[in-house]
């Protein structure tokens, strides 16, 4: 960034003069500042009509789903008859899958707590505002650091036998290395080369969260053993 211009404050003695406003635009400030020449349309009808259509599409889609698929209802709750497996709702099955690998305090408290905290601080971490493409020419130190972090994570999660995390970690790191020097490569590698570090981390998280949820939902049977989704009721 170029050094900030020096500011001179000049006090006017004329009480009737209209004060001139000075706006300092920092590079990380609202993008709208630079967009004075954009095309605008009237909110009514252009936006309102789209909102109404969106409302109708969602309501119709949900109604069709409600006509075709019935909400599950099993027998009345019975505290002495534990179903095997007893499963939480799908959005918590990633967590329940974690319980299979880690002690409850790690799977139930530490990891979800870390996830929520990391999500909440995203806009306040400078790297998320300024990060550019991951690799710059050279990048030997980054390559070494990345390899070290990957190895550490792989060993850590591998030691717990948690392959749904360890394997995507390796794959993500592989993709990150494939992005190195990808600016001169084919289309896929050029696209990879543009991905920033925060985007790599989020993608890593999303892949793992999805994988854990899918395994927990479809591939876990009695005693939380691995089963095929078609081998029995889930």
């Amino acid at each position: 960034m170029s050094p900030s211009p020096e500011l001179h404050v000049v006090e006017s003695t004329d009480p009737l003069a209209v004060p001139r406003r000075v706006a300092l635009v920092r590079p990380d400030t609202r993008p709208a500042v630079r967009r004075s020449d954009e095309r605008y349309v009237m909110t009514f009808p252009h936006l309102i009509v789209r909102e109404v259509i969106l409302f109708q599409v969602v309501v119709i889609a949900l109604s069709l789903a409600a006509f075709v698929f019935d909400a599950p209802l099993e027998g009345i709750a019975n505290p002495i008859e534990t179903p095997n497996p007893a499963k939480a709702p799908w959005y918590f099955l990633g967590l329940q899958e974690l319980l299979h690998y880690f002690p409850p305090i790690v799977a139930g408290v530490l990891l979800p707590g870390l996830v929520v905290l990391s999500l909440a601080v995203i806009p306040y971490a400078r790297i998320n505002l300024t990060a550019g493409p991951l690799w710059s020419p050279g990048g030997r130190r980054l390559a070494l650091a990345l390899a070290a972090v990957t190895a550490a994570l792989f060993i850590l999660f591998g030691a717990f036998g948690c392959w749904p995390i360890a394997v995507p970690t390796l794959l993500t790191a592989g993709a990150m290395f494939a992005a190195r020097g990808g600016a001169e490569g084919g289309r896929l590698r050029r696209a990879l080369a543009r991905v920033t570090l925060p985007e790599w981390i989020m993608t890593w998280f999303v892949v793992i969260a999805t994988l854990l949820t899918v395994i927990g939902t479809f591939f876990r049977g009695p005693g939380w053993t691995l089963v095929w989704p078609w081998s029995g009721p889930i």
Partner: protein
Amino acid sequence: MSAARISMADWLRGSAVYRSIVRHGTADTNRNRSLVIFENLFLHVHPVKVREKTLRFSHTYWLGGVTLVSCLVLIATGILLMFYYHPSVPQAYRDMKELNYVVDNGLFLRNLHRWAAHLMVFAAFLHMLRVFYHRAYRPPRQFNWVVGIVLLIVTLFLSYTGYLLPWDQLAFWGVSVGTNMAKEAPLVGEKIRFLLLGGNVVSENALLRFYVLHCVVLPVALLLFLSVHIWRIRKDGGVQGPPTDADDPRQEEAE
């Protein structure tokens, strides 16, 4: 016939009663189109004009909108379901049977509530990812991102508390598994679980507490944070789509 109907509509629009409710005439001029927005309590969260670009599908994929619509469907169906539901054991389960087999369209109502709940959780998650990959959390929208995370958590808790209410095996054991996880939090875990369940196991007390959380506490919290969320979108200059070169801070640094 049609001409007569149009003049009927015109007569209605011109009537003193109608004009006392809707103060502007037909929205055929830009002035009246502006009045449609800012003379309406519910629409005036919108600006009178919007950037044309923000209307494109790829700008937001309408994911926040899908989340909001499923939320509205949930409120409507939820209120109707409350007419038929008693949060007590075993009446809660009997009410489910009544809904499924006795109440007109009861099963449809329950289905709609169920699938809208799943859609809301899923759409909220996708909305979060969209905002992240478009880097729409950047200033001045930092705090609205945090509000969004709070909304996601409230949504999850809403869905989770609702999961117990049918009082079937699925509900009972799903909630047992989840609340056993809460127990593991150091120091306060056991106490939080006791507070949540009104006891040490999922019981009638837990059903009542989850019912009150699901129908009063969490919806109020959701509406509060939702109002802040939507109001701040407006205050921060509207929805933010994918980053362009013009608003990329890195461009500035390159200059």
